């Protein structure tokens, strides 16, 4: 047989074998696709139920595909944007109850600035959206990160990066929901979690966002933190590692600027915030350069904004971020094992942002000192500098003794 002659054997036997091959292939692919699509689509209807939203929206790993689709179905009035720090902090059911409006948590694992802005672009298509809670940590980063992560598919968003409508979105979404490994993976996890909930398993055991950190595992770091933040009277201040970047010398994050402009144009109120992080992980910036740079940037934006911009900083030594520093805490109220804030912190933040009652049982010191709207504060820069000073033991803004007393209460 020469090089260019017909390649396969031509006999009837070969063709019959090929037909059998194609039949088996087609049947297997067809049946698998049908079964997977049916299961996935049924599961999707189940996902839309209001009482499943905590599990669905706090489930880690599948948000890039599901959340834009779910968001468009649920049409919330408030949406949370950011990475997993935001995803883990805001339980949509509890936060909706507290705020009195339907809240959707659009946070995704490792969400980049670009992805977050794109999710926000698509969210603007919902005319019911009144407010956006935006985690600023997603945008102010001094490390290299990927622009997008695996699973982020811009073609399922209603609009492209320039807000032009995307083509075939319905078809792509139907495909994503029915015939992707993402759908299958998410459904398996979802079914497992719902089954655990219905069997009476405790929330921290089936919802990762509610997992509880044992802060005594970090005893040495916490001890160092305690010595630095609550120094013995008369002892020398202990320096902590400072920030690597002076944000006041840098341009504001481009994606954040786009996101704020677009929310402003559509009249959507913005609640921008820095997430709390445990004090043992906080770098001390006595000049609060990042927070003040953000403040100046947001003030400039507010000047031409059709909506209200609020700005909260929770990332300073306070009763949440100092948990376990003065007395050992084995079961943290506020922190997950990976140092993300738990939904209990999200409720405190939401109460402060939306001016609602703090949840019952909240420590009084938290109701007095946990974030403030810096856009309307008379001396926002002073507030930020005072709180930054705490991280090296300067408590002149607030009684050292009263904090020690509050934090050592059992």
């Amino acid at each position: 047989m020469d090089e260019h002659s017909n390649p396969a054997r031509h006999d009837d036997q070969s063709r019959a074998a090929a037909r059998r091959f194609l039949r088996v292939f087609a049947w297997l692919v067809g049946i698998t696709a049908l079964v997977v699509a049916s299961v996935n689509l049924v599961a999707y209807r189940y996902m839309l139920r209001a009482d499943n939203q905590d599990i669905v929206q706090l489930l880690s790993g599948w948000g890039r595909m599901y959340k834009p689709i779910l968001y468009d179905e649920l049409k919330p009035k408030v949406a949370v944007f950011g990475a997993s720090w935001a995803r883990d902090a805001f339980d949509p059911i509890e936060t909706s109850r507290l705020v009195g409006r339907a809240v959707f948590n659009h946070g995704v694992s490792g969400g980049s600035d670009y992805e977050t802005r794109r999710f926000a672009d698509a969210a603007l298509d919902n005319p019911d959206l009144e407010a956006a809670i935006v985690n600023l940590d997603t945008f102010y980063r001094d490390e290299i990160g990927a622009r997008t992560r695996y699973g982020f598919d811009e073609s399922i968003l209603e609009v492209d990066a320039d807000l032009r409508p995307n083509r075939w979105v319905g078809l792509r979404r139907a495909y994503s929901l029915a015939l992707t490994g993402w759908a299958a993976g998410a459904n398996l996890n979802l079914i497992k979690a719902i089954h655990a909930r219905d069997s009476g398993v405790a929330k921290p055991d089936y919802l990762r966002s509610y997992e509880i950190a044992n802060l005594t595992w970090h005893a040495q770091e916490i001890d160092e933190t305690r010595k630095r933040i609550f120094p013995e009277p008369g002892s020398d201040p202990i320096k902590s590692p400072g920030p690597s970047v002076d944000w006041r010398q840098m341009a504001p994050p481009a994606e954040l600027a786009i996101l704020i402009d677009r929310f402003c144009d559509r009249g959507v109120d913005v609640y921008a915030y820095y997430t709390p992080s445990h004090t043992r992980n906080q770098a001390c910036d006595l000049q609060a350069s990042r927070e003040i740079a953000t403040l100046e940037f947001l003030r400039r934006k507010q000047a031409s904004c059709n909506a209200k911009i609020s700005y909260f900083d929770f990332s300073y030594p306070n009763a949440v971020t100092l948990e376990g520093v003065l007395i050992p805490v084995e079961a943290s109220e506020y922190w997950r094992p990976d140092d993300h804030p738990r939904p209990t912190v999200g409720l405190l933040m939401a109460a402060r942002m939306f001016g609602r009652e703090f949840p019952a049982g909240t420590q009084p010191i938290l109701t007095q000192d946990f974030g403030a709207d810096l856009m309307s504060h008379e001396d926002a820069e002073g507030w930020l500098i005072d709180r930054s000073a705490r991280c090296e033991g300067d408590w002149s803004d607030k009684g050292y003794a009263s904090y020690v007393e509050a934090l050592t209460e059992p």
Partner: protein
Amino acid sequence: MVFASHSFLAFLAITLIAYWLVGRSDERLGKPLLIVASFIFYGYWIPAYLLLLTASILFNHVIARTIMNHPPAGARRALIVLGITLNLALIGFYKYAAFVVESLNWTLQTRFDVPDIVLPIGISFFTFQQISLLVDAYRDRVASLRFWDHVLFISFFPQLIAGPIVRQHDMMPQLAARRNWSLRADYLAIGIALFAFGLFKKTVLIDPVVPYLDLVYQAAAAGDPVGFLDGWAAGLGYGFQVYFDFSAYSDMAIGLGFMFGLRLPINFFSPYKADSIRAFWRRWHISLSRFLRDYLFIPLGGSRHGLPRTVAALVITMALGGLWHGAGWTFVIWGLLHGAYLSVNHLWRAFVSSRLPGVRDSVRRSRILTLAVRALSIVITFIAVSFAWVFFRSPDLDSAMRLAVAMFGFSGWHEVVYLSRGIVPMFPIYLLIIWLLPNTMEIFQATRAALHVEDYRDDRVSPLLPHWLSFNLNARWAVTTALVFILAWFMLSNLSPFIYFQF
């Protein structure tokens, strides 16, 4: 349209159904249908560039036909020069104009406006095919050239935008001899299997971890410190990425061609099993290597005019080969590195033959020594190629140099925090695949789905191919193909196009 996308799968399904229906009514209609489908495929991206493709075909057809009509020698020479010049001008304008202006501005400190030109997809591939056709016509090596065969030869969608670079003598005889253009079950089954395995390599094996690799290159591009481990993660990681990406593409292209009963040339044959850089280029992007060898290296003198001339020809060929991949100095340096590697390889071979024949013979007599030397040669070749990939992948010379310096251990151990995540844990699996498993062409050897596979009979270094790993049209392979396809299909995410689509 990218092969690994939902839109392409839909396009393929529609084209196959149309081809089947048309074939049932009139088996001659298959060819025009493939031409129409190919033009739709190309125009899906930027319809206006269909005019460019059409103009290229018309122009080259006229020139080739005129040359084949044997005008006077001077006119023939003028025609071939005109043809090649205009083809190179086309690719030069679209691909290199900005690069040339930028380089001028940089070296002469001028301020010419850098043109903002969108590169027509596949232009490097179809222009090379046109040039090879003209040269073959000039050398009287084209047996027949019918217009519609020429149109399909250039536009056939499986090879249009990222190769293989098909030569006229590979495709034209198939097109000329073909009478029955209806869909055949055996071609379709084998083509689907090849396509499925290619899709699997891309969507399952490599795409999910690529973002982690990108982090290291982004860090280098941003001027962040990168260390020894980062540098090698970048070099080896991109080596794996481009390997799986391009081998996936090649399998899919050959599979797609075969679905319609056309055989495309082999393009990829376990290049990381090569025990020398020369062997590497016999196995990597085979259709390009052959083109460069036949239309550049040999006309430049080849290896028959002494060692200095050979080395010069190698370096020039590889530098231009590098430039073919992209308009940037990083690509030129990548090509020069390979030119240098090949030169060292030639010099070494000459040295061993003339000065160390005894050592060479004693190594050959010992099976263990032969194996050890071969294994060492494979590893050295792999490391050299991986080092060069850093230049190929880096967005600019600064970041390439930063990574290269790091690879020599001059900048600490490691700096990028993501190093331990993502792609690095996959390295052992990738090494197992690239060094120990048979390649797709070996698995599908019995199907003869690709041209020139037999040329690689002696290059097989996989552990023996077990019978059960040889593709067959039986139920076991049907189930395997279905599972592979389902997994690959469910992992489709429209995330990253094939690397070679940008060339």
